[in-house]
């Protein structure tokens, strides 16, 4: 089993899918699923191996190096699984659209490029795959035309800025060390000054920060996530932005290294605490903005910005528990956010809208999707026995024990904000009144239910038995030079506080059974329709009012004046300035030959004037 085979299957499969699509749609669907499933199987087979392999294509004498270790394996398997599920979901979601061959080609190509990123062992091939991913993401974001075009444009402009920063950093590294091999750079970098390391961190940090949507580089994300087709939103939010996370892990712990990273600056002004503060702000503000959204996907998009903050906070804090929490949260977020985007996609597919003010009561119409969403939001909040709880617990615990209660406060308060928007999401879509026009809505098709079921199951599995993943993460942590954690199958044991999910699980199970028996012992209840409700004597006309509209109105009135997206406005201001400037410059090129002759004459006159006065030549 070799690494190049995985990439050949991924890229070749994408191309083949496109070609087969020209002949038959069924064949294309089948091939797309088979290719992505085989990628999952291949990557799974590579578990636990570490290898490095160099190829030379004669490009400036630079090698094309493929590398596998525990870190890249974890990312690769996540990419393969989420990619496969979203392709399965696409089968019925995208059927009605135009250019479906192109869509599947792009989806497969994005997954292949992401696999390439995590498997590459040198910065040049990293950069090439990074660019393939970015450009394909642009094409997929603007797939729906209309407002999606503007969203895609915003994304690609920010992405290019990131890529340029990456290029500058990469060229500077090549200039200093004469190599782009990551492990060679890592061993050489210990000898350079801390100023140079800060420069490298800044250039790469901007590139990865834009992809990971850290404040203040987050502005492309809400538009892109809400306008992209739902299955691609799942990929975008679940794994594509996590390539930024992978980049940060690579930069901070592999290239720069643990000791150098923790030694940059001191106290509040160290690089580490700056990054932590950035992470905390990234958790806090977007969470409050998410509460005020009325578009289901836009709400989830802002939530993605917030959750990415937890990951950055965990990674930047730099203790073994925090790192474990950060990496675990990356994995969990990929699962539950993909699940939520797919579930909302199924609702949009059946009802044609994702407006939280007009949906409602779909729990009885789409039970599987409802249960999936319920599990998803529980994980997003971090309710115990879902995977989100374990990762958040790890992050909180280390923040408290290491004496950073203010960071912990931002993280915890972010969670309480999360409850508000999660409840709004599930209440306004699945609970509450079922409007008359959605009375005939059907269940989601099987190809949409399947990914939802798989992801819900995975969330509960890793919530009850987090040790499965914590062992892998522990191996990553020790490879970065951290002390090993005392991991068991159901949690983490330590002197300062133990987590034991199996105890919580049995307690919940036992209490559940007892309460359920008590509930059944009472007199039987009569099932009534939703219109048969108690309104304290007031008459409630059927289907006249929608009770869930503007759900948090009092809060909205209070906090919305404080939550202007100043950063976004600032970027738009820059964009409009550049546009004006470019408009001015354009006037020079009028296309009239007479003008050009005039420019030449003026220029010559200027030269003669200079020569006559100062005689420089």
């Amino acid at each position: 089993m070799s690494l190049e085979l995985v990439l050949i299957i991924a890229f070749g499969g994408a191309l083949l899918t496109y070609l087969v699509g020209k002949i038959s749609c069924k064949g294309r669907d089948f091939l797309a699923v088979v290719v992505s499933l085989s990628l999952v199987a291949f990557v799974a087979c590579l578990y636990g191996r570490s290898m490095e392999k160099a190829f030379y294509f004669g490009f400036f004498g630079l090698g094309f190096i493929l590398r596998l270790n525990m870190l890249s394996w974890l990312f690769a398997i996540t990419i393969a699984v989420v990619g496969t599920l979203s392709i399965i979901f696409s089968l019925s979601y995208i059927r009605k659209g135009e250019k479906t061959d192109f869509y599947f080609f792009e989806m497969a190509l994005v997954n292949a490029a992401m696999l390439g990123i995590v498997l590459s062992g040198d910065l040049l091939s990293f950069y090439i795959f990074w660019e393939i991913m970015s450009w394909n993401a642009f094409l997929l974001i603007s797939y729906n035309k209309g407002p999606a075009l503007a969203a895609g444009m915003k994304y690609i402009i920010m992405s290019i800025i990131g890529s340029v920063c990456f290029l500058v950093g990469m060229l500077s590294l090549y200039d200093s060390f004469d190599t782009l091999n990551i492990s060679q750079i890592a061993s050489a970098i210990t000898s350079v000054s801390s100023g140079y390391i800060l420069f490298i961190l800044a250039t790469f940090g901007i590139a990865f920060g834009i992809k990971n949507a850290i404040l203040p580089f987050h502005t492309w994300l809400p538009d892109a996530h809400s306008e992209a087709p739902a299955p691609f939103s799942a990929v975008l939010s679940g794994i594509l932005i996590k390539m930024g996370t992978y980049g940060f892990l690579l930069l901070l712990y592999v290239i720069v290294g643990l000791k150098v990273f923790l030694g940059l600056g001191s106290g509040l002004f160290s690089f580490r605490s700056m990054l932590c503060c950035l992470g905390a702000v990234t958790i806090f503000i977007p969470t409050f903005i998410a509460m005020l959204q009325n578009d289901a996907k836009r709400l989830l998009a802002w939530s993605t910005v917030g959750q990415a903050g937890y990951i950055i906070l965990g990674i930047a804090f730099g203790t073994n528990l925090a790192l474990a929490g950060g990496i675990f949260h990356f994995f969990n977020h990929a699962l539950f956010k993909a699940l939520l985007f797919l579930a909302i996609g199924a609702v949009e597919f059946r009802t044609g809208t994702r407006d939280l003010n007009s949906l409602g009561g779909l729990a009885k119409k789409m039970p599987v999707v409802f249960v999936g969403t319920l599990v998803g939001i529980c994980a997003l909040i971090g309710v115990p026995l879902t995977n989100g709880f374990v990762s958040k617990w790890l992050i909180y615990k280390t923040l408290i024990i290491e004496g950073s209660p203010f960071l912990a406060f931002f993280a915890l308060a972010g969670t309480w904000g999360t409850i508000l928007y999660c409840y709004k999401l599930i209440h306004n879509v699945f609970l509450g009144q079922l409007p008359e026009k959605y009375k005939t809505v059907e269940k989601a098709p099987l190809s949409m239910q399947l990914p939802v079921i798989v992801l819900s199951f995975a969330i509960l599995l890793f919530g009850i038995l987090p040790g499965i993943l914590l062992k892998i993460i522990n191996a990553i942590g020790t490879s970065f030079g951290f002390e090993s954690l005392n991991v068991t199958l159901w949690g983490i044991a330590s002197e300062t506080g133990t987590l034991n999910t199996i105890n919580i699980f049995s307690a919940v199970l036992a209490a559940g059974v007892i309460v359920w028996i008590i509930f059944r012992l009472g007199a039987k209840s009569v099932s009534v329709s939703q219109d048969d409700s108690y309104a304290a004597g007031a008459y409630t006309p059927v289907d006249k009012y929608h009770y869930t509209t503007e759900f948090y109105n009092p809060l909205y009135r209070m906090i919305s004046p404080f939550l202007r997206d100043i950063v976004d406005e600032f970027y738009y201001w820059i964009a409009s300035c550049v546009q004006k400037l470019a408009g001015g410059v354009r006037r020079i090129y009028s296309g009239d030959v007479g003008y050009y002759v005039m420019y030449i004459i003026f220029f010559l006159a200027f030269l003669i004037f200079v020569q006559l006065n100062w005689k420089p030549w």
Partner: protein
Amino acid sequence: MVTKVIQIILSPVLALVIGVFFLGLARKIMARIHWRYGPPLIQPVIDMIRLFYQKSVSHGRMFDLGIILSLVGSVVVVLFMPFGKMCPLRSSGGLLVILYIMLLAPLGLAFSGGQGANPNISIGVSRKLILSLGYEVPLLLVLLAVMTHYKTISIAEVVDVQQSTGWSIISWPLFLSGISYLLILPAILGIRPFDISSAPQEISSGPMAEYGGKYLALATIEHAFVLFISIALFVNLFLGGAANPAIFFVKMLLVFVLGLCTNAVFPRFRIEQAIKYLWKWPTLLSFLGLIIALAVRS
């Protein structure tokens, strides 16, 4: 092992008995403050038994499951809560787990109510969640101050330390935090001036509007548990817990009667006023409290 099993069975039962006793006591004391005679102490028990045998309506699967979930959450929290020397699950995650499982109770009620499709429920749940966001801000700062000061996330250890060094509310690093907790306690308990989400005269008990029969009985049990948990948390963190259940009970009783006196004399806030109050003085105090706790630690 046997004592542990007994503790696991005993502590929810004790919590329920105390919670229901508090419910009865609340009606009695409120009546006396209003110069009425008031119902007998066991009135809530009588009501519950009667309700169990009465007819009720259901609005769907989630309507049933939500209330069960909320009750399960409360029962599990009780297992994590030290009561005197009793704490069956003391080493399974500590205060952070308590914080999180405490979520299940309001969340379950909100899920259940959500399927009721009733305008009053919708308003009530919205208010409840906004209010909880309001009091969680100071509450989190207070809890973080306690955890920072004692350098642990285990509530049982916080109690143990206080048993030897004295109550934390009268130790100066945590004094401000304790005061702040007292100021937000009515909001956590949902009593006046913070009974915004239930508001019987305004939105006919909000989230409970569709409940009847056994649903109402379970909601009352749930309310009893919430009373117990919120007060027990305060007693454990700031009044030193207790060496035996009797003293613990007396401490809880004192805190509860204090809360009732507030309840008896205040009118109800609007939701905006409540948030403004909660994010002003209690937050300021708990913020200062956390800074002090952090300064003392280092």
